[in-house]
């Protein structure tokens, strides 16, 4: 039986790992290669690595670093940040990264999603939508460029559109809940989920094993992106990378 994927999300900034809250206030938490080694030991399901500044600062993906991470990693890797062209996607896949994730470029120029899907296969391209609730409204909007540009687009429509264009996975990231560890924003995730046939991954807000368990019970076959909860420990947010053992993960799927 297929298991849900519990995915540590590593945010890269200047080749170091950082953690944010509501996409602000990045704090350095460690070295990415070291983090990959630790998640190897813990036999994590898969890893997501996102360069949060690449698009905003017009930087290209750091291919040598990605190659290092991919060679070290004993689990699949998904990389996002600054991917604009089919060539870049190809380069990233050819150094051994399993999936590429696009956000800003996909929204700006949606046909790049089809082009990349055609080249490397739908299963290897994900689209990330960073979402924020509109002020004084129950509606959500998609933001890009690391929470600096409001596209004013609706994530429900947009996720469906990217699925139709060939994205093999849709990743919904809640800006409001990022780093807060107070739980996922379930209602909007349900709305997106109900109209997708490709896998959905949810991110932003996981603060406990109960949050993970609830998401699994609600959605079954999804990816659950976890940032702060696997990186910080205790009230003072000391940096301590952790991840559930295989046995602990099996317990999260009970009543599944």
């Amino acid at each position: 039986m297929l298991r849900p994927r519990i995915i540590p999300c590593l945010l890269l900034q200047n080749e170091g790992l950082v953690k944010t809250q509501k996409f602000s206030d990045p704090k350095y938490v460690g070295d990415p290669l070291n983090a990959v080694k630790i998640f190897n030991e813990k036999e994590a399901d898969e890893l997501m690595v996102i360069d949060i500044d690449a698009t905003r600062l017009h930087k290209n993906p750091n291919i040598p670093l990605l190659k290092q991470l991919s060679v070290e990693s004993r689990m699949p890797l998904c990389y996002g940040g600054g991917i604009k062209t089919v060539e870049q996607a190809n380069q990233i896949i050819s150094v051994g990264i399993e999936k590429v994730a696009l956000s800003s470029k996909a929204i700006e120029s949606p046909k790049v999603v089809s082009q990349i899907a055609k080249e490397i296969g739908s299963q290897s391209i994900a689209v990330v939508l960073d979402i924020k609730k509109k002020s004084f409204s129950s509606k959500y909007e998609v933001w890009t460029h690391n929470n600096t540009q409001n596209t004013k687009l609706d994530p429900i429509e947009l996720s469906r559109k990217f699925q139709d264009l060939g994205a093999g996975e849709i990743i919904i990231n809640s800006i409001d809940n990022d780093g807060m560890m107070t739980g996922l924003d379930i209602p909007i995730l349900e709305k997106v989920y109900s109209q997708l046939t490709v896998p959905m991954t949810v991110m932003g807000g996981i603060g406990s094993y109960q949050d993970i368990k609830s998401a699994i019970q609600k959605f079954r076959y999804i990816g659950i992106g976890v940032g702060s909860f696997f990186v910080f420990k205790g009230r003072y947010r000391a940096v301590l990378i952790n991840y559930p053992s295989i046995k602990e993960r099996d317990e999260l799927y009970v009543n599944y």
Partner: protein
Amino acid sequence: MLTIIDYGLGNIQSFQNLYKRFNIETKIAKSEIDLNNATKLILPGVGAFDHAMDLFNSSGMKERVESLVLQNQTPILGVCVGMQILANSSEEGTKTGLGWIPGIVKKFLPSSNPQQKLPLPHMGWNDVIPSIPKNPLFQNFENDSRFYFLHSYFFASAVSEHSSATSEYGIKFSSAIQKDNIYGVQFHPEKSHHYGEQLLKNFAIL
């Protein structure tokens, strides 16, 4: 020499790196001459069937690999799309497959049961149940064996004895196949932690 065929697709470095951890020497073949002392072969692959067939056909290595496999009985392990191209054809594309293990690659159909939503591609860790008697690739596994899958198409064998392990995703499908010296796995052993390491070690010591 265990030789990993680099025809332009798949995580070549990951295989080499994994074997290096166990002091098993491997070689990467980019052209026919690199196949000279191959005693075992790995055929990786990701992406689409047609693309993989095109790249393999124009790699300059296809004829030599075919002769090693079909004439010399050199063991070969196809991984993911590398397994799918062992078939006669695929619903995903129009190219002819290698046809070394008779079968057709088919697409998973959406679940007819609305209560049971099965997203496609099949993405994540799933159980792999080896057939009895246990195939040599699955020796020394404890009770559970699970691997990482990432695919929307599966290999439908023409001959049921060629299925060496099954997994379930809406339907039961062959997650591993074997015909004589030709092996295939649908999942990614190079990215499946100790489970994948055990399987790849088993292949190396066949």
